[in-house]
C-alpha cells in the first residue's frame, strides 16, 4: 500500500512533472522565475490553490456532477448527469480560491503581494491547476487520491519553478552572449532542465 502511494508521489513530482514533462503552467514558470524569493511565494500560492482546488472539485465532481440524477422539475423528469458543466464549475472554484489567496496575501505579506504582481491573479488561468482538476475528473479518482495527486502535482510545479529560479539567478552573473541574453537563454535552460527530468522516466512503470 505504501509502495503504491510512493509510486504516485514520485511519479507526479519527478517523472511526469507538470511543468517539465507535461508542459503545463509554463506562463508562471517563465514569468515569476527571475528571482528566488517571489518564486518561492508563487510556489506556496500554487500549492495552496492546487491542493484545495483538487479537494473541492473532486467533491463536486463525485457528489454533484458525476451522479446519475433523476429529478422531477416542473412536471418533466430530468435523467442523466451534469458532467458537461465541469469546465465551468472548476474554473469558478479555482478563480474563487485565487481570490481568497490574493486577499489573504495582501493582508499577510504585502511585499510578496506586490512582487507576484499580475501573476497572482493569473494562477486562475494557470493551466497546471485546471489540468490537475480535469485529470482527476476524467480518471475518476477518489477524494484522497485526487488530493494527493493535486498536492504532489503542485509540489512538482514548485520544484521546477524553484530550480529554474535558482538557475536564472546564477545566469544573471554568467557571461551570456549578447544574442542569447534574457528570455533566449532562459528558454534554453528550461529545455535542458526538461531533458534532465527525462532521466527520471525509468523510476516508475
Amino acid at each position, binding site marked *: 500500500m505504501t509502495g503504491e502511494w510512493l509510486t504516485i508521489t514520485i511519479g507526479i513530482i519527478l517523472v511526469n512533472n507538470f511543468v517539465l514533462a507535461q508542459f503545463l503552467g509554463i506562463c508562471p514558470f517563465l514569468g515569476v522565475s527571475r528571482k528566488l524569493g517571489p518564486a518561492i511565494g508563487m510556489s506556496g500560492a500554487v500549492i495552496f490553490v492546487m491542493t484545495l482546488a483538487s479537494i473541492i472539485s473532486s467533491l463536486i465532481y463525485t457528489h454533484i456532477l458525476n451522479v446519475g*440524477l433523476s429529478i422531477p*422539475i416542473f412536471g*418533466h423528469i430530468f435523467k442523466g448527469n451534469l458532467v458537461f458543466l465541469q469546465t465551468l464549475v472548476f474554473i*469558478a472554484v479555482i478563480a*474563487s480560491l485565487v*481570490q481568497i489567496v490574493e*486577499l489573504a496575501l495582501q*493582508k*499577510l505579506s504585502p511585499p510578496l503581494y506586490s512582487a507576484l504582481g499580475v501573476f497572482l491573479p493569473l494562477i486562475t488561468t494557470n493551466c497546471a491547476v485546471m489540468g490537475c482538476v480535469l485529470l482527476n475528473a476524467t480518471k475518476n479518482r477518489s477524494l484522497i487520491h485526487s488530493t494527493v495527486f493535486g498536492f504532489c502535482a503542485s509540489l512538482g510545479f514548485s520544484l521546477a519553478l524553484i530550480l529554474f529560479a535558482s538557475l536564472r539567478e546564477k545566469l544573471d552573473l554568467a557571461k551570456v552572449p549578447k544574442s542569447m541574453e534574457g528570455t533566449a537563454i532562459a528558454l534554453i535552460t528550461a529545455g535542458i532542465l526538461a531533458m534532465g527530468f527525462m532521466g527520471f522516466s525509468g523510476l516508475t512503470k
Partner: protein
Amino acid sequence: MFELVVLSVGLVVCMGILLGLGIGITARVFEVKQDPRIELVLDALPGANCGGCGLAGCADLAKAIVAGKQTAAKCPVCTSDGASKISEILGTKTGQNVVKNVAIVLCCGDNVNAKSVVGYNGIKDCKSAILVSSGAKGCKYGCLGFGTCAEACPFDAIEITDDGLAVVHSELCVSCGKCINACPKNLIKLVPETVKVHVFCSSPEKAPVKMKVCKVSCIGCRKCVKNAEKNQMLMKGFLAQVNYDDPPPPELVEASGCPTKCLRRTDDH
C-alpha cells in the same frame, strides 16, 4: 431540454452564491486598511485614466501622490482647482499655479491652400498615408487631415475641418499628449494655453520650395520677428517660431501683417 437548462443554471447560480460568500467572508477577515486619503485624491484627479502621467492610471497616480513620490503637477490633465484640492487633502502647498497646456497642430495648410500633388486612394489614416513618399500632399511637413490624431484623442478635442485640416479645440484639450505620438508628421506640440498666437507652419524648407506647394506657409520673411520685442519670435532656419517662454502679444498678428497669414491667433484658426 428545458429541465436540463433549469438544472444547469440552478447549479451554477448556487455555486456562484456559495463561492461569493466564501470570498466575501475572506475579504472581511483579511481586510486591509487603506490610507483614506488615496480615495480622496483619486476623486480630485480627473479620472480619465489617460496615462498622461506615465503611470498605469489615476488610481496608481493617487497612490504615488499620497506616498509622496509624485505631485499633482505630474498629471497634465489636472486643473489648478484639482491640484489645489489635492494639496489641501495632503496638507501641502501647490507652490506655483499650474499653467494649463494645450495641444496645437502647427500647420494651416488645408486641402484648399496646400494641394495634394498625387491622388491617394488608400486607407484613410495618416500613418498609412505616409508610407508612400510621405503622403500625397506637396508639402512633406503638412497635415494630411485623415484624423489619426482625432482618433487617438480620448477627449474628442480634435476636429478635422471640411477642408481636411486637424484643429485642436483648446477648451476640450487636457494636454494628455496622446495626439503628439499619433501624428506621423510630428506637427502637434503642447504649448501654454495663455499663448494665443502661433506660426502655423512646421516646414523647414526654403521659401521657394514651400511657396510652390502651400499658399499659407511661413516663408521666413522675418516681418513678425522685426515687429515683436526681442526674443519673442525666434528664427529656426527658414521658419519663424513663437518663443513659448517669452510669448508675443496677440496684436502681433495685425502689427506684423504676415504675408502668407500663417501667423494667426488660435481663435481665428
